[in-house]
C-alpha cells in the first residue's frame, strides 16, 4: 500500500524553535511607541508581558531552546503527522503531490496551543498567577485555557459578545478547561463599562475585547496579557510545525516546490513557512504563499488594485470604479493582510519578496473546503479552507503545465465547532447577492431631503 502518512516519534521532535530575525536579508524596522515616537523598549511591554517573553520578542539568536516542560506538554499531540492528500490529487487529476501537516490533532483542534503552552510556561516561570486574553470565535481562547490549566494558571478570556452568543461550544471548551469566559463588553473594566454606558446592548468588537483584557492585566501585578498571533515570539513558537515537517519531508526524500499557509494573523502560516523561508534565503528554489481571506480580488463591480506595498501593509486599497461619474474617490484603506492583525514578520517577508500573497473569496474557500472534506474526509476550519483554495489553484496550475510539483501546506485546524459557517455556505447564505446600483440609488434618493447623522 502506498504511504500517505509520515510520523516522527517523540525523540525526533525538534528541541529548538527557529528565529528568522537572525537570517533576514534586511533588518525589520522596530515598532515605534505611539506616545513617544521612539522604538519600543522592553519596559514599554512589561506591564502586559513577562520579561522572559519580552526577551524572546526581541531576540536575534537563530535557535532558541524549547524548555523541557514545554516539550512534555507538546508530546501530548506532537509531533503531528504529515499526510499526503492522495484522494484530492486524484479528484483534481493533477500530477502534483500534495502534502499537509495536520495541526488539527491538538486537543483544541488547531495550531494555537504551540504558543499557548509556551506562553503559559514562561508566565508561570516568571511568577505570574493569571493570564488575560481576548478571543473572537474562540480558537485562541480555548488553546490558552487548556495551556493555563496545564501549568496551574488562572485564565480569564474576554470573548466578543457577538461571538460569545454565536459560538457556545468554544466557550464551553474554555470553561471545561477551567477558564473564566466573559462576554465583552463587560462591567469588569473601565473600557467595558464605558461602552455599556453608551450602549447596553453593544455586541462588542475585537478592539473592545483587547482593551478589556489589557486593562485587566495592567491592573493586577500577578496577571499578564497573552496574544495568540502577530508578535515575534508567537511566530517563533509556531516554527516547530515547519521544523518537524522538514524532517518528515526528508524521510520521504522530497522537498516542496510550493509551501502554503493561510494568513489571518500570520501565526500558522509562519509556523510552517519560516523554516522554508530560511532555506529560500540560503538559495533554495521554493515558492512560499500566504493565502489571505478577503473578497477583494473577485470584485465584480470594478477592479480594486490589491497589492502589498509597504511593511506595515497600510498601502491604500484603491477603488478604480467611478460610481458612474468622472469622480474617482479618495484612496480607501481597507483590510486584508494589511488590516491591523497581520504579523510584522510576515509583512516584512512580503516586502522582501521572500513570500507572496494571494487572496481568495469566501465562496471559493468554502467550495475548496467542501471538496477537501469529500475527498480527504477531514473537515477543515474555515481559516484552513483559504490554504486549501490556494492548494487547489496551485495543483490545477501544475496540471495545466504538466509538472509534478510538490505542494505542502499547513492544515491548521479542524472545523468541528465551525459548522455554522458551513451551514451558512451550504444553505446559500454566502452566495453572491445581486443588488443593482440603480436599486440602491433609488432607495438612497428616498432620504435625500434629510440631513445626515
Amino acid at each position, binding site marked *: 500500500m502506498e504511504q500517505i502518512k509520515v510520523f516522527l516519534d517523540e525523540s525526533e521532535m525538534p528541541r529548538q524553535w527557529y528565529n528568522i530575525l537572525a537570517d533576514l536579508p534586511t533588518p525589520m524596522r522596530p515598532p515605534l511607541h*505611539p*506616545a513617544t515616537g521612539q522604538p*519600543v523598549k522592553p519596559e*514599554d511591554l512589561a*506591564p*502586559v508581558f513577562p520579561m522572559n517573553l519580552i526577551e524572546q520578542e526581541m531576540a536575534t539568536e537563530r535557535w532558541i531552546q524549547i524548555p523541557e516542560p514545554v516539550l512534555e506538554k507538546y508530546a501530548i499531540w506532537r509531533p503531528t503527522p504529515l499526510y499526503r492528500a492522495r484522494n484530492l490529487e486524484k479528484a483534481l487529476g493533477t500530477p502534483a503531490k500534495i502534502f499537509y501537516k495536520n495541526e488539527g490533532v491538538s486537543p483544541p483542534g488547531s495550531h494555537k496551543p504551540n504558543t499557548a503552552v509556551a506562553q503559559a510556561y514562561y508566565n508561570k516561570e516568571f511568577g505570574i498567577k493569571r493570564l488575560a486574553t481576548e478571543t*473572537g*470565535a474562540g480558537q485562541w481562547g480555548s488553546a490558552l485555557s487548556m495551556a493555563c490549566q496545564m501549568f496551574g494558571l488562572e485564565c480569564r478570556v474576554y470573548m466578543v459578545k*457577538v461571538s460569545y452568543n*454565536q459560538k457556545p461550544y468554544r466557550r464551553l471548551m474554555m470553561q471545561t478547561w477551567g477558564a473564566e469566559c466573559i462576554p465583552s463588553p463587560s462591567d469588569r473594566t*473601565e*473600557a467595558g463599562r464605558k461602552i455599556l454606558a*453608551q*450602549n447596553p446592548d453593544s*455586541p462588542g*468588537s475585537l*478592539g473592545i475585547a*483587547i482593551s478589556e483584557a*489589557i*486593562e485587566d492585566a*495592567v*491592573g493586577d501585578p500577578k496577571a499578564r496579557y497573552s496574544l495568540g*498571533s*502577530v508578535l515575534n515570539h508567537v511566530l517563533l513558537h509556531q516554527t516547530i510545525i515547519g521544523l518537524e515537517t522538514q524532517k518528515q519531508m526528508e524521510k520521504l526524500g522530497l522537498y516542496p516546490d510550493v509551501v502554503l499557509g493561510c494568513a*489571518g494573523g500570520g501565526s500558522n502560516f509562519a509556523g510552517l513557512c519560516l523554516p522554508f523561508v530560511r532555506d529560500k534565503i540560503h538559495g533554495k528554489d521554493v515558492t512560499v504563499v500566504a493565502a489571505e481571506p*478577503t*473578497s*477583494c480580488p473577485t*470584485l465584480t*463591480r470594478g477592479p480594486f488594485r490589491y497589492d502589498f506595498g509597504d511593511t*506595515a501593509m*497600510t498601502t491604500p486599497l484603491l*477603488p478604480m470604479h467611478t*460610481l458612474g461619474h468622472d469622480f474617482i*474617490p*479618495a484612496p*480607501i*484603506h*481597507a*483590510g*486584508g493582510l*494589511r*488590516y*491591523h*492583525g497581520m504579523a510584522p514578520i510576515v509583512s516584512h517577508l512580503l516586502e522582501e519578496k521572500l513570500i507572496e500573497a494571494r487572496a481568495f473569496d*469566501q465562496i471559493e474557500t468554502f467550495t475548496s473546503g467542501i471538496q477537501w472534506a469529500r475527498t480527504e474526509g477531514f473537515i477543515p476550519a*474555515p481559516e484552513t479552507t483559504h490554504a486549501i483554495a490556494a492548494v487547489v489553484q496551485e495543483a490545477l496550475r501544475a496540471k495545466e503545465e504538466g509538472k509534478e510539483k510538490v505542494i505542502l501546506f499547513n492544515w491548521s485546524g479542524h472545523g468541528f465547532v*465551525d459548522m455554522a459557517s458551513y451551514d451558512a455556505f451550504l444553505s446559500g*447564505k*454566502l452566495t453572491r447577492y445581486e443588488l443593482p*446600483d440603480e*436599486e*440602491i440609488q*433609488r*432607495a*438612497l434618493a*428616498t*432620504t435625500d431631503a434629510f440631513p*445626515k*447623522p
Partner: protein
Amino acid sequence: MTLDQLLEKIDALEGRCPKLGHQVAFGYCRRETGTLPCPRTLACWQHRFNAELILRHLLTPEQWDAVFSTAPKTRVDSLLEAIEAAKTRREPSAQ
C-alpha cells in the same frame, strides 16, 4: 424600496468576519465600533453589493474619512495604545 427597507434587507446578509473568525451580519459590520463601520467593511462586502455607495450616503465626510481614508493601525500599535490607555485609566484610582 425605501432606505429603511434597503438597510433591513442588507443588514441581515451574512459574511465571514476575518477578525472574529465566524459569520456576522452586515448590520454588525456597519456599526462595529458603535456608530462607525469596521474599516474592513468595503473589503468584505463590496463584491456582494455597492457598500461604498450606501456608506458614503449614511456617513458624514468626516466619518467616512475617519474610517476609510486613514491608514489602519498595526496590531502592535493598537497593543501599545491599549497599554497606555489602561495605565491612564488605572492611575486615578491608584492615587
